[in-house]
């Protein structure tokens, strides 16, 4: 008799074959990827069992799998890989910007901040010290996901003037990506970038004689977007419903107003020191930008720092203050959510953040969004609950988000949920598709010069790891001139990010109640531009190109020739088919999930290419590489990570 394990394996196989066969006729090429023939009962953490599995995991946990990463993950397994990632040194944007300012003596601008972001996202040698290898992919991926929840954007005019404001903010996300969410929430709240973006900075207690009322922007968004959301949730992230079947609001306008009154009295750390007299006239340090790099401080003591200065914090004791502020109410809320009068700005802030963090919504609200950013847009409620349970079990732990990340990635639904559902997966967002291409194709910065212009220095010669360039790293948000990907880090239109977690693409997905957040960014015009951008990367921007002598900043380019050996070994044509290339691309880019239909379509085209295709290339096989990359990266099967 077969061991029980083997019986399960055979049953599993039988089920999968039935599933695979039911959707396609024997004659037509299946659009369904070949079933993953591996045992799902040993435990999701045991593995990866195949290169394809490894590639799938890395698509969720990094900025795109590379052949080397796949091999390494195969060698060490999921848990060891995760442990390496938890221990990897952090890549911080401010470190890069400080190098640009203090060592290169360049004037730091937003293009440098984007260079820093790409350094973290692409990994590899540090430009200041090539022996230092950036490898904290998972930390960077979580930070990026957090940046799409706790949104700050350089579309804010003031933040746009100070790139370090945003770099400092992003580094908070990086440093706390495996930390504690309550801690993260506090550091975000007190960052000048967030204080500026959502108006908490300089917010002051009410003064009706001057028509001053506390600004409600941060009060609203910290609740609506950063913690509890609009409606009461069950532990699995689905909405609670009242007797009439309607969702239940999490809070009222009065609640928001109460929070607004709490979030008062905070400002730059150096008001009164930086040349401005008082709280309301306090501004950024225009020369140094220094006060963007320090948490905000409270101005809640009369005559501090100068005689005659009032307290700007509403603690319920002033004539126009809000008394006994009712914050979020829920079972177990400290003092029923009522903030007693008489506190300080700091103690009141602690109470408010504890009040928010203690709400039962937070676990499922954040867990679901992190799953959506990494794995799939429509996780099952059970999956959300498993991750939310880990979030909640680690509420006071300094390693809470580390546990959450592990729970997300090692969950069975992450590891093989795609086998059982054709509604699984997420549309890749433009930045992740770009970083994937660059990582997998050995991107380097090339060309560029060292030059001085207007007294300002620029060092872009021989800088393979400064990811610069107008068309590529810097111009990624350009969607007006026919190319560009319409997405740049920390560049969202509004605090609602590039897309809302609840976005329902019209048509089949709306009809089935399936959200597809990333589809909201892929409007008709953006899709066209993205395809043109893919063409640029697939066919051009190659490291072998001769540089233009007048090219100031260079561009990020890839090594298309790395795949020559895969693309053919003879004279091409059907006699020298492109199978190895297609299979390699399936593994590297699509986690081995290329359907037979797509494979056949690619091969039918690529096998026409032969050694007579010499126009414009040094090797005919590059035509196979260019066209294969173009077709793959624009395809629905690639664009949906599953």
């Amino acid at each position: 008799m077969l061991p029980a394990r083997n019986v399960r394996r055979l049953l599993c196989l039988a089920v999968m074959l039935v599933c695979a066969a039911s959707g396609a006729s024997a004659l037509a090429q299946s659009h369904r990827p070949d079933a993953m023939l591996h045992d799902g009962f040993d435990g999701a953490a045991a593995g990866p069992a195949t290169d394809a599995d490894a590639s799938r995991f890395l698509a969720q946990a990094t900025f795109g799998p590379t052949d080397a990463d796949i091999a390494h993950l195969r060698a060490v397994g999921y848990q060891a890989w995760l442990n390496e990632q938890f221990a990897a040194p952090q890549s911080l944007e401010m470190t890069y910007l400080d190098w640009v300012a203090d060592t290169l003596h360049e004037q730091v601008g937003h293009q440098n901040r984007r260079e820093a972001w790409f350094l973290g996202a692409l990994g590899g040698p540090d430009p200041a010290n090539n022996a230092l290898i950036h490898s904290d992919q998972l930390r960077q991926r979580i930070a990026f996901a957090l940046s799409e929840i706790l949104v700050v954007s350089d579309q804010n005019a003031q933040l746009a003037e100070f790139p370090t404001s945003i770099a400092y903010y992003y580094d908070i996300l990086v440093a706390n990506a495996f930390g504690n969410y309550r801690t993260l929430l506090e550091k975000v709240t007190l960052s000048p970038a967030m204080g500026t973006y959502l108006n908490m900075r300089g917010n002051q207690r009410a003064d009706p004689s001057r028509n001053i009322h506390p600004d409600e922007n941060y009060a609203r968004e910290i609740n609506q977007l950063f913690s509890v959301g609009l409606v009461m949730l069950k532990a699995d992230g689905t909405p609670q419903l009242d007797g009439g079947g309607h969702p239940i609001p999490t809070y009222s306008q009065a609640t928001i107003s109460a929070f607004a009154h709490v979030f008062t009295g905070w400002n730059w750390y150096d008001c009164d020191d930086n040349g401005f007299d008082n709280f309301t006239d306090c501004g950024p340090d225009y020369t140094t930008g220094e006060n963007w790099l320090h948490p905000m401080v409270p101005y809640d003591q009369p005559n501090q720092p100068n005689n005659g200065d009032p307290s700007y914090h509403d603690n319920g004791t002033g004539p126009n203050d809000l008394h006994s502020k009712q914050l979020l109410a829920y079972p177990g809320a400290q003092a029923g959510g009522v903030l007693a009068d008489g506190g300080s700005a700091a103690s009141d802030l602690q109470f408010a953040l504890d009040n928010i963090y203690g709400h039962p919504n937070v676990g499922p609200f954040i867990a679901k969004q992190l799953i959506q950013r990494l794995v799939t847009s429509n996780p099952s409620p059970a999956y959300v609950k498993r991750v939310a349970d880990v979030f909640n079990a680690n509420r006071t732990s300094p390693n809470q988000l580390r546990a959450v990340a592990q729970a997300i990635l090692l969950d069975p639904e992450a590891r093989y949920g795609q086998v059982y559902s054709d509604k699984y997966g997420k549309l890749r967002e433009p930045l992740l598709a770009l970083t994937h291409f660059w990582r997998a194709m050995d991107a380097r910065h090339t060309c560029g010069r060292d030059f001085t212009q207007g007294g300002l220095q620029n060092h872009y010669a021989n800088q393979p790891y400064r990811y610069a360039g107008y068309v590529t790293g810097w111009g990624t948000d350009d969607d007006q001139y026919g190319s560009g990907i319409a997405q740049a880090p920390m560049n969202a239109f509004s605090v609602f990010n590039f897309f809302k977690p609840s976005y329902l693409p019209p048509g089949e997905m709306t009809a089935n109640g399936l959200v597809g957040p990333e589809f909201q960014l892929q409007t008709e015009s953006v899709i066209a531009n993205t395809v043109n951008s893919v063409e640029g990367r697939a066919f051009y921007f190659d490291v072998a190109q001769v540089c233009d002598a007048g090219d100031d900043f260079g561009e990020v380019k890839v090594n298309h020739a790395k795949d020559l050996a895969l693309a053919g070994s003879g004279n091409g044509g059907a006699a020298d088919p492109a199978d190895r290339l297609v299979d390699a691309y399936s593994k590297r880019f699509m986690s081995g999930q290329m359907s037979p239909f797509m494979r056949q379509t690619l091969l039918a085209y690529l096998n026409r290419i032969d050694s007579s295709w010499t126009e414009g290339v040094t090797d005919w096989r590059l035509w196979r590489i260019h066209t294969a990359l173009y077709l793959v990266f624009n395809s629905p099967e690639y664009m949906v990570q599953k």
Partner: protein
Amino acid sequence: MRPDRRKFIRETICAALGGASVYSAFGGMKLLQAAARHDYGFTNYKALVCVFLYGGNDSFNTIVPISGAARTNYQLVRPNLALPTAGLHALNAPASGAGSPGDGSSYGLHASMPELAALFNANHAAIVANVGSLVRPTTKTEYQGGSAVLPPQLFSHADQAAYWQSSPPSNAPVTGWGGRLADLVASANPPDIPILTSLGGQDAFVRGESVAGYVMNSYGPNVIDFPYELSGDDALRSAFDALHAQGQANALERTFGNAMRHSVATATLLQATLGAAGMPNFDGYFAGAGEIGEQLETVVKLIWAANNNVPGYTGLSRQVFFVTGGGYDTHSDQLATQGGLLVELSKALSGFHAALTSVSLADRATAFTASDFGRSLSNNEDGSDHGWASHQFVVGGAVAGKKFYGDNLAGTGSAQMPSLAPSDQNPNDGGYGQMIPTTSVEQYSATLAKWFELSDSDIDLILPNLGNFNTRYLGFV
């Protein structure tokens, strides 16, 4: 293949929040609910065209006093910028009463703008005076006394540009009022033709709650440039199309394939529409009109197509367009810079009207200018600094032209060009020649929305602060 927008909007509401919560920005859910319940069915075609001038155009040197106290003050207060009366193009508005500048002075347009002045005097252009972003009517006393309720970041380009486009003033405009207009009228249009279109880049004005603005180049849609096919056939294109055809195994893949096919179809449709047989050649109307002219010419073509049975481009009743120009932030070298920009603006706006007139569609489209802000009345060495209120133009066959419009501090709805007296004697001047608006962006926009035939309650929905002002509709169209 996109479903009926109204059905989609209803389903969006049901699936998303279930109707109870309304705390998203600008009552977005209320907007969607309104869209779901209100059936607009229009029997005519109308188009609104926002012409946004980035940087803050200096109104004081665009609409210039020729005589009266204003002229004296003008020369006194901005000696480095004051334009001589010789060369100005007189505006023949009423000297007093309704439609007059309201300050007893007469005005003319900058020497660069003969065409627009002629259009004004021919009744097809109007001026909306002293308009700007406000939360509610604001007096100088309140403003200088610190008790005014003000839009935040008053002199910041990005913020003010956002408020003009999104209204009401808020740090994080999620949608623009052009987008919210489109949300409400989407159900009255075919689902597969863009009704909210920008020819001048992405910005808040063309973001709706459910309608996403279609961003085009100034001369046509962004098309996919399929790669050169060495084989001389279209095998690569065929492979691309095969991968995007229907039949994917995964719902998200099917949706993406759908989106790709739709993008290609829309670009193809627009290219075909712009090259439609029988379309007149409008080039002559836009000679010398620069990039703004190029964008407006494309708008004219699309409006012509919508009204002339061009295959695939029929059934449209309401469209919103967004065109833009830049370079108006004239802190220095203003006389030369602005002089050049206004040449193109004048030709573009008048060409827009003339082109549509030539095909009997002038009354179907109303173009209106907008800008981050006006500029300071006082000058620096050779330019002006950020201001607040500004004067804007409205152009179209439906416009009751040859008049000045606006509101005043009393809220009685009669235009009041601001005083140009020195700051300490000037009741309109908040300081440094930054004029406090007497007309709000809300009132300006509401008047246009009213022409667009939205209901009063829907206009309140998309312009929530409108109720803060006495006079809802200014009467220029």
